[in-house]
């Protein structure tokens, strides 16, 4: 393989007039720039969604608080959920896919660069459309701005009888538009992985992150499609007199639930599978060992991909499915825990016997392992249907899925930021600020989401803008809110670290972590065409082979 990459200055556009630079970014079809655009866009919405979460937490600090009106509160949790899933986590993960997949498989770009740009701008405008509802949502009805139907918009709440005005339309259209963007990106990822690998990069030699993005792409195609279909049906209901979900005219509310969750549950895995990928890259490097059980990790991922398509109705145990359906979705949900457990064991196996270096990326991955363990186990508890009859729709569920999304996905993504930031910018993130970020976030996270399980056990339902005194929820909610503010401070430290290190961080070498995958063989930041000569690989760890010619991996695979 070749490591004599040509560094082409000018991937960063300093020195050009700002208008020209802006024009280059807006019209770019380069996978790295689109990746960065996705990530910056997602980070922007992380802050917006975070502010919405803080408004929710201030309102719930004590009983009968009137910081915001019930209408505003309902908009806040709707926008928080929609924003964080569709316009924060999805874009950031797509951004990493865009940036890393071609580099890791030794390609010069994605398979369809213009489709890539098109997909990004669709997703971007989807987000703008959602937030434009604050201005345009009232329509002629004066019905109140911004959607307030909850992020899953259960029928018939989304029908015109219950949601006059245009706020629900903005919600529908923004998901429809960004959904098309997601489908485009998924097609692009799958095509890139299948068609653009460098010589020698057999499927069985791809870095695990690439494998996981391949599975994620397939799941996006299957999951987003029914969501888009449902949104179109809802629009037909609202404007062309359809009755799919219009219960007043004999439509079915349960049908919407099925449509939404056959998207919604695979979506959780769409989001968590790249996080698994980050761990599978970072843990080996900082344990100084190859991933334990590579073929099993691939098999477990594919198994998760398939099984997770059959678990969606575990969100619906309380809606009155018959006992056979409930039993079916109980066993599929429990079963998906098996490949997930195997993954956790393999990561422990990777660390076992290694020399673990506690750099910030590794810290976040270790945080992930502990938290995802708990998130998985509370998931198993809720898969036990009768127990879920108590826990479903309560704050226990809210705690559970934030454990998955924040404690799992977000922690892994933070790890990924610290790990790949030197490659993307050519500068290291500050370790000192990174440790502040990590520990503040760990403390805030556990204060908020550990405690949040308890009000659920004490009967507190989700999505209530206030609660009665004397239910025993006051103190717990105050602690939860304090934790939320600590997390907010940690995020500020993180953003500050991103900005400050960009200008004053230590210069990064091509391979600052002594890693083994192809992206570290090129310069930091990589040149526009990534590799001067397309590399040729002989094992899963091409850079290991290069650094240890006496004992290459290719001898064992």
């Amino acid at each position: 393989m070749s490591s004599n990459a040509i560094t082409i200055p000018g991937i960063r556009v300093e020195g050009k007039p700002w208008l020209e630079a802006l024009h280059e970014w807006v019209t770019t079809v380069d996978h790295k720039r689109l990746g960065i655009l996705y990530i910056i866009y997602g980070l922007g919405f992380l802050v917006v969604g975070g502010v919405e979460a803080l408004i929710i937490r201030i309102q719930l600090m004590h009983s009968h608080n009137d910081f915001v009106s019930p209408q505003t509160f309902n908009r806040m949790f709707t926008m928080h959920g929609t924003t964080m899933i569709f316009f924060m986590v999805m874009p950031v993960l797509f951004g990493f896919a865009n940036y890393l997949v071609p580099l890791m498989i030794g390609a010069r770009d994605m398979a369809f660069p213009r489709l890539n740009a098109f997909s990004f701008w669709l997703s971007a405008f989807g987000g703008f459309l959602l937030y434009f509802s604050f201005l345009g949502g009232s329509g002629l009805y004066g019905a109140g701005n911004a959607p307030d139907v909850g992020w899953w918009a259960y029928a018939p709440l989304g029908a015109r009888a219950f949601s006059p005005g245009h706020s629900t339309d903005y919600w529908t259209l923004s998901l429809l538009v960004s959904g098309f963007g997601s489908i485009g990106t998924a097609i692009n990822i799958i095509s890139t992985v299948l068609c653009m690998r460098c010589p020698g990069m057999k499927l069985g030699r791809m870095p695990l992150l690439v494998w996981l993005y391949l599975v994620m792409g397939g799941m996006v195609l299957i999951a987003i499609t029914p969501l888009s279909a449902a949104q179109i049906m809802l629009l037909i209901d609202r404007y062309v007199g359809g009755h799919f979900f219009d219960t007043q005219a004999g439509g079915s509310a349960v049908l919407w639930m099925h449509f939404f969750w056959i998207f919604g549950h695979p979506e959780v895995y769409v989001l968590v599978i790249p996080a698994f990928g980050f761990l599978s890259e970072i843990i080996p490097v900082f344990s100084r060992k190859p991933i334990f059980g590579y073929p099993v990790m691939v098999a477990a991922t594919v198994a998760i991909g398939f099984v997770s398509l059959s678990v969606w109705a575990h969100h619906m145990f309380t809606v009155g499915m018959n006992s056979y359906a409930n039993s079916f979705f109980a066993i599929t949900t429990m079963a998906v825990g098996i490949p997930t457990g195997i993954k956790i064991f393999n990561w422990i196996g990777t660390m076992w016997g290694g020399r673990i270096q506690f750099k910030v990326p590794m810290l976040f991955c270790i945080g992930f392992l502990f938290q995802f363990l708990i998130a998985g186990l509370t998931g198993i508890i809720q898969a036990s249907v009768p127990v879920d009859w108590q826990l479903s729709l309560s704050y226990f569920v809210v705690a559970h899925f934030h454990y998955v999304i924040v404690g799992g996905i977000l922690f892994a993504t933070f790890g990924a930021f610290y790990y790949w930031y030197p490659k993307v910018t050519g500068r290291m993130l500050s370790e000192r600020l990174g440790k502040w970020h990590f520990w503040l976030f760990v403390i805030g996270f556990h204060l908020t989401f550990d405690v949040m399980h308890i009000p659920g056990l004490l009967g507190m339902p989700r999505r209530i803008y206030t609660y009665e005194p004397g239910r025993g929820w006051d103190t717990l909610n105050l602690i939860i809110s304090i934790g939320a503010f600590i997390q907010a401070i940690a995020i500020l430290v993180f953003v500050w670290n991103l900005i400050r290190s960009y200008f004053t961080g230590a210069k990064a070498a091509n391979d600052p972590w002594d890693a083994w995958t192809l992206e570290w063989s090129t310069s930091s930041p990589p040149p526009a065409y990534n590799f001067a000569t397309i590399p040729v690989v002989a094992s899963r760890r091409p850079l290991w082979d290069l650094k240890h010619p006496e004992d290459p991996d290719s001898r064992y695979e």
Partner: protein
Amino acid sequence: MQSAAFLSCFVTIDAAADPTSTATNIFAPQSTPARSILHLSAFVLAITGIIFVVVFTLLVYAIAKFRARSANTNSEPAQVYGSTQIELAWTIIPVLIVVVLFMATARVIHAMQDAPEPTNAVKVTVIGHQFWWEYRYPELGVVTANELHIPVSDVAHPTPTFLQLLSADTDHSFWIPELAGKTDLVPNHPNRMWMDPEHTGVFVGQCAQYCGTQHAKMLLRVSVDTPEDFARWIREQQRPAVADERVAAGRRVFETTACINCHAINGTVANGRFGPDLTHLMSRTTIAAGAAPNTSQNLRLWIQNPEAIKRGSLMPAMQLSKSDLDSLMGYLETLR
């Protein structure tokens, strides 16, 4: 199940046993469905707890034992790629655990959901509205709102209550943590749930499925009565509304304003269905689905300015003149 007993000692908050308290707790069951769930959750918690301890210990051990020390940072550790035996072990064991958990779960699902309805069961139709509860006792000819009365179920002579769950508008969910798990009220999709409370007292809960602006103040109160009290309550509710000539003026106000568009009072021309039946309004302890105690002052405020009590409720401000309001209040307060 011993673990269940242990668990309830550990997490039960005493308040739940005190019928006057408004605290709720899924670990303080007072009825068979809630108790079966507690037993199952103790079992599930025990298994997941063991898994947690094992994996947590492995993780902590790996992190502590295999951390890089300054002495060996320059050499790479042995490169191990995997082990089929170990992979098989940590695949088969979880499969067995899942099988056990599923069996335990399926048993309780069947016992709860497919329980036959005894002929002596009290039948109640619960209809969810934005943002209040309607209760109809079809076999007893009673219609009431927001405060459900059911008889206590003696172990020797079980009298369970079976609820038929319907919705008039959006989705709702009926949840009294001490009595049973929650079941949703979904339009065009009738559901069923049951409970057989072991003790008398008032049990609270609230709507658990987001149903619109005032989802938060759609509170539930279930009064579990002795069989005698329940029979008396039913007899009182079956009577038509009091027709007291001294408050005829108030009744006229009620019958000639928009009140009757939404509310019903048995024995008058008022037969609206959008709002709660007011035939025996004064027999209830709260108004506005539990948002405020049923006092004369609150009721007056509720009629004139519902937004002050429950912002976004569908009750319009009636804007009555003071004399009309006084006579209306006089009438309503006779509706015992």
